[in-house]
């Protein structure tokens, strides 16, 4: 169906080609998963399939990509619109019209499909993706998962035979991601559609893939093959595969079910070892009830009491009492719109409380001047680019020093410690950095003012496993120095990796709270893969298991 024949891509101003000598085929009806770390060229590979590379993005394409016999050499993206449906990362940015029905019809109108056929196809597509009840809604009012399904529907109405999805779930909460992926699976199973999918959170999709293409980046060769074989050696792999590697299962399992079946031995071995050490956290078991200040061991850095925050008629927070103490990493979890970001914003004065109290080291955030508050609490927003204004990494650091009134070179030193590779490239432009590097730079800029409380809003968007691991290391280093971290996230694997305490929000209220192992292991929806495999033993991460096995010796 799709054939890459010795394909290479080089952009004009780049020293190295993005892709070099890529050859593989995707058979009709396959679900093909493209994996690779951030910035390795996954998106470029996907955009080659419908000709956006090189017709739209510029650059030079060598070799040849053919889709169902049509070469992208001679066919523009618009000439392939009836054959390849392409959906980008952020669906809202690709919408042309303003309502769901019009958006679904747009592609068909461009192709000149007759009105009766259009009506019929539109109804079929609405049912296929389960979005019939949304048909008259304005696109801007939909949730992320709904928007992504509408975006998929809007290319499906042209009846393409190939669907290309570039990280369709990266901005979604677990439920939205589940809706989108189950819709994609149905398209593969029922319609025999060929789907090519790039995804960072492999744990969500690895078990459904028929074929995996590994894009290692850095000019190393792209390889394609069977999922177990490819993932066994891939530089990025979901926790279940890593656990398989650790336990020496070959080929590695791809689903929790597989791993659970084969984990009998491992569980017996682990049961005889001392459990994972989660008691080292100073604030384990902390609660935030009315007298939260006394219960939490360690100095409390921020509290809210009965906090209510509203936007217009909506109450984003409905009476939240919360406390965070030194040395704690608190994860705020919950679906989109549960109030996670609002709670963070209230702590730095970006959201004004309607009633209740916010106290950050004796300051009231909304009444405190930002230049004073940044020394008490710092926040990295969802898009780190929002607070990066400089032309280069070095310029950004110098500006951060001046803004914070810190000694010159402080930000650069932080960068050298937290992200050594960035400190070595001071001339790079912030927009040219990868997601992970931009996050690291933004964290350093915020930390330059030496706030004791650091807030991170959805830091894992677009981060691969390696970048997440680095983030976890950074956070652990800061905790040891006496900082406190509050992180709003959907990513259970990240929570397992770094959080000491979890606060679960729903509809603006705290619904569950406690040490990470307790909250996360007991919940079927929020348990990380390792916990699901090794339950009821409270192991959360592969590294914890590895440490225990290494320390316990071979048995």
């Amino acid at each position, binding site marked *: 169906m799709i054939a890459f024949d010795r394909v290479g891509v080089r952009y004009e101003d780049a020293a190295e080609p993005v892709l070099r000598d890529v050859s593989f085929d995707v058979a009709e009806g396959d679900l093909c998963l493209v994996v690779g770390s951030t910035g390795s060229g996954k998106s470029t590979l996907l955009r080659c399939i*419908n000709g*956006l590379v090189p017709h*739209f993005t510029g650059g030079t394409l060598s070799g040849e990509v053919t889709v169902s016999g049509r070469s992208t050499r001679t066919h*523009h*993206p*618009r*000439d392939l*619109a*009836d054959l*390849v*449906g*392409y959906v*980008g990362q952020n669906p809202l*940015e*690709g*919408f*042309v*019209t*303003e309502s769901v*029905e019009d958006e679904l*019809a*747009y*592609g*068909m*109108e*461009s*192709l*000149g*499909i007759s*009105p009766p056929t259009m*009506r019929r196809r*539109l109804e079929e597509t609405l049912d296929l993706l389960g979005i019939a*009840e949304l048909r008259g809604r*304005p696109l801007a009012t939909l949730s992320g998962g709904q928007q992504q399904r509408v975006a998929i529907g*809007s290319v499906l109405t*042209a009846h393409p035979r190939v669907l290309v999805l570039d990280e369709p779930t990266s901005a979604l909460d677990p439920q939205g991601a589940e809706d989108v992926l189950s819709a994609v699976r149905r398209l593969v199973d029922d319609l025999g559609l060929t789907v090519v999918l790039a995804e960072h959170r492999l744990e969500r999709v690895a078990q459904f893939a028929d074929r995996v293409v590994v894009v290692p980046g850095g000019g190393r060769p792209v390889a394609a093959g069977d999922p177990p074989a490819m993932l066994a050696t891939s530089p990025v792999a979901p926790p279940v595969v890593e656990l398989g590697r650790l336990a020496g299962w070959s080929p590695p399992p791809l689903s929790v079910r597989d791993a659970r079946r084969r984990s009998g031995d491992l569980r017996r071995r682990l049961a005889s070892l001392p459990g994972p050490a989660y008691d080292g956290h100073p604030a384990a078991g902390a609660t935030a009830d009315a007298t939260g200040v006394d219960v939490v061991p360690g100095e409390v850095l921020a509290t809210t009491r009965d906090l209510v925050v509203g936007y217009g008629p909506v109450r984003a927070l409905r009476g939240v009492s919360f406390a965070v103490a030194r040395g704690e990493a608190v994860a705020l979890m919950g679906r989109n719109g549960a109030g996670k970001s609002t709670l963070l914003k209230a702590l*730095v*004065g*970006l959201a004004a409380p309607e009633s209740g109290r916010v106290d950050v080291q004796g300051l009231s955030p909304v009444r405190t*001047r*930002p*230049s004073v*508050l*940044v020394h008490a609490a*710092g*926040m*990295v*927003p969802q898009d780190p*680019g*929002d*607070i*990066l*204004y400089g032309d280069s990494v070095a310029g950004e650091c110098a500006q*951060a020093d001046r*803004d*914070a009134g810190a000694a010159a070179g402080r930000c650069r030193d932080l960068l050298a410690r937290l992200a050594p590779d960035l400190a070595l490239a001071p001339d790079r432009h912030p*927009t040219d950095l990868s997601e992970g590097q931009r996050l690291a730079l933004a964290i350093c*800029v*915020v930390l330059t*003012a030496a706030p004791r409380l650091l807030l991170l809003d959805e830091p894992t968007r677009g981060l691969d496993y390696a970048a997440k691991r680095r983030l976890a290391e950074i956070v652990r280093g800061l905790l040891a120095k006496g900082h406190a971290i509050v992180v709003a996230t959907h990513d259970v694997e990240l929570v397992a990796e770094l959080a000491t305490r979890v606060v679960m929000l729903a509809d603006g209220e705290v619904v569950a709270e406690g040490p990470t192992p307790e909250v996360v292991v007991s919940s079927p929806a929020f348990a990380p893969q390792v916990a699901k495999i090794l339950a009821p033993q409270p192991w959360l991460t592969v590294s914890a298991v590895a440490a225990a096995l290494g320390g316990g010796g071979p048995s």
Partner: protein
Amino acid sequence: MRPANRPRFPRTLHPGAWWLWAIGLAAGATRTTNPVILLLLVAVAGFVVVTRRSRAPWGRAYGAFLRLGLVIIAIRIVLQALLSSESQGVHVIVDLPQLPLPAWLAGLKLGGLVTWEAVLTAFAAGLQLAAIICCVGTANALASAQRLLRCVPAALYEAGVAVVVAMTFAPQLVADAARVRAASRLRGYDRAGFAVLRHTARPVLEGALNRSVTLAAAMDARGYGRTAVSSRRVRAASSTLVLGGLLGVCIGVYGLLDADAGGWLGLPLLGAGAGLAIGGLVAGGRRTGRTSYRPDLWALPEWLVAASGLGCAAALVVLARVDPAASAPPYPVQLPQVPLLALLGPLLGLLPAVVAPPPADRVAPAPLATPRFRDGRYAASSIAAREGSSIAGVTEGGHGQCADPAVPGRRRLGRRTGVPERR
């Protein structure tokens, strides 16, 4: 009769019809300064909006335009009564202390006599402008501007898409700017001074650029521009024809509406312009192979609504010719005359409240929440809603027998009837 021709059949009226009607009302308002007629026009526009707007976000636009109108009237009165030294009449309201102004400001005064004549003239002139703005506001509230752009002829398709994209872009840019400015607090910037603006402009503009590139890629990938087949020359010719024609139409309309310009350039230019534009549209329309999904219908109600607007304009134009004293009362210190003919215009404009179909989303019941079957009440009511009134009666009877203590209404009823008997 086709359902689309029935005025009671719920559907969305063609946006073009609403705009024609609103323009008719606005044109009528330009022909009169009689405050009674103008107030009637504003009331008519408001009434039609209230009865025929949909639940969509733009349905609330009318209020904003109404407020804008009030502001205009206030400004007009302040300027005319306090600042202008033109003939002010004899009925003095108040004598304010007058500030001496230099000779080169001879046309102005500050303070001094404020007369009823000045205030009322200013009120009437401001009201006229406010009424025109309200009429435009009606069109905005009743018809989505984007839907109107969907109806642009194929020859102008590219321009229409550009406008639609720009219209969705602007609000996003504003939202982006607000977000980035808020984020500047996180860098410790106290105020939104020039330095902050310089810093924050970059992420905003970068975001906008990235988005436009993404949008262009998405449109290309979905076949935009795929079916344009004709040569560059044909395209240029048709565009010139259309634009020239539209220019002619504009000048023609101006000639018709502005009494001073004289009628000689009105009708002929309008006709010639319309001819050119239609020719261009037909020539250009042949070249695209696009089809249109559920194009808006133009049926009987659309004709009636458009005719109502044009009728209103015509009635007021006739009034201006036949009875200038009623159309533009010269002595504003008395209650203006309102002959029967003057009422005809606003009355004609009221027609859409009856002949325009109600929008579908106001007729249909509000979407029911997913019925919850935890307690019997939800189940019964949702079944009743689905199966019609006869069953609704039965379930209601059933409720009485259940005597569900959890129903607060029923408990209150029992208490109210029970208490007096005990006394």
